[in-house]
């Protein structure tokens, strides 16, 4: 019987979790998307978030990237408070400077790639290492070339993003996120905007990445086979709550919750 709460082969069982959410609340206007959500992800663990659209999966990634602000609760990265902390018994925001120091350990790949169209592929990748990490240009270029090789885009180094297919753009975006050497990688429906024939290459890059690194990954995806292949644990979301959590084998072959059964039936046919 697999142990659902600590399946972390590459993890470090004594340290703090890589990511921890405690009682997180997020509202958009009158709609409460997350209502007191708590869960933790161990270091090196790869967790897939599945569930119907609007169930709050993407919001979780956006909160962890500080693209949204939680209305309540706390986020921790490596045990460090990330956006808010308790001081004198009150929940107060953390100064931007400390927030940035923590954020530097987190990278994200977006559904719409979001490459910078005014820069070349290489320019996209070295931009942040040079200007956020302060790396020397030559060093950043060497790192970029290595990563472009890794994602199979070395020959497009000097191309503009607009000249690339969606799948190629997404592979560049993956290289760009990795160039910051993050400990945690957030993948937000990275194949949803791609034509079906382009999905394979992107997933292949990510599979290899999962097999060869100990990156902590939080994966929001509709590609169930991919979730099953690369994740250590799957969380099934519905209306901002985790309705079921299990190892991928159990989740996809013997789901217990009625919502999970209905959802998997709908997406897998």
């Amino acid at each position, binding site marked *: 019987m697999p142990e659902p709460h600590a399946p972390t082969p590459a993890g470090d069982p004594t340290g703090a979790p890589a990511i921890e959410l405690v009682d997180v609340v997020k509202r958009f206007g009158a709609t409460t998307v997350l209502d007191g959500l708590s869960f933790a992800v161990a270091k090196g663990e790869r967790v897939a978030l599945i569930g119907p659209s609007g169930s709050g999966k993407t919001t979780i990634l956006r909160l962890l*990237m*500080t*693209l949204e602000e939680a209305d309540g609760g706390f986020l921790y990265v490596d045990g460090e408070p990330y956006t808010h902390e308790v001081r004198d018994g009150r929940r107060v925001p953390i100064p931007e400077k400390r927030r*940035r120091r923590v*954020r*530097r350990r*987190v*990278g*994200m790949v*977006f559904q*719409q790639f*979001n*490459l*910078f*169209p*005014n*820069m070349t592929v290489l320019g996209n990748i070295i*931009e*942040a290492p040079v*200007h*956020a990490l302060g790396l020397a240009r030559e060093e950043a270029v060497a790192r970029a070339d290595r990563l472009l090789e890794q994602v199979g885009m070395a020959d497009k180094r000097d191309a503009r993003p607009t000249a690339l297919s969606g799948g190629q753009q997404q592979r560049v975006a993956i290289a*760009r*996120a990795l160039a*910051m050497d993050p400990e945690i990688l957030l993948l937000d429906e990275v194949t949803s905007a791609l034509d079906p024939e382009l999905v394979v290459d992107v997933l292949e890059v990510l599979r290899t990445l999962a097999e060869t690194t100990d990156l902590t990954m939080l994966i929001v995806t509709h590609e169930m086979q991919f979730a099953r292949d690369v994740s250590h644990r799957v969380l099934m979301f519905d209306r901002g709550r985790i309705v079921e959590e299990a190892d991928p084998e159990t989740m996809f072959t013997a789901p217990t919750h009625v919502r999970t059964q209905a959802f998997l039936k709908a997406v897998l046919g």
Partner: protein
Amino acid sequence: MTGGLWSWEQAAAALPPILEGFRVTLVATVVGMVIAAVLGLVIALVRRSAGRWLTVPVGLFVELVRSTPLLVQLVFVYLMLPSVPALVIGCTVLGVHYATYLSEVYRAGIEAVPRGQWEAATALDLPRARVWRAVVLPQAVRNTLPGLGNYAISMFKETPYLFSISVVEMFTAAQQYGAATFDYTEALTMVGLIFLAVSYPTSLLVRRMENRLA
């Protein structure tokens, strides 16, 4: 008056002062446009990111400039600052006047940069100043080029207002020539043709730019 409707001798005689005036027109347009382009961007950035202590006065100033005629602004500043050369005042007032319009062009250009660009910059932890300089402004300025071109043409055509502060640009030169010779036809016709010869091709160029960006 000379005999016919049009005299080529008159035209030839009027041409040198008109070309001299054209030089002044060009200087006023180019300098005015540089001021407008830079100041317009500053206004757009201030109104977007500064605190209320700055956005409120800047907003009031923009409304004031837009709600009063260029002609009145020119004469007012000219009379208030008698020691400043008229051409300097002309360029500056044109520049400031148009800056208030260009700030809106920039605002629209900045807003047209997709939200995903900001989000990617945040995810990459780029410093705020770098996001503006390397990511947002290059894309925003690209969006604004046709707008800047149209306002440049418009400013070019409004340089005759400098007449009111005795700057001898092209139109004033033709006026003076006419007043001296009692013959306005050739001089004013040529001024009109020169305006047309510059504005029309430029507007075609701007339209091509718009189509390329669309």
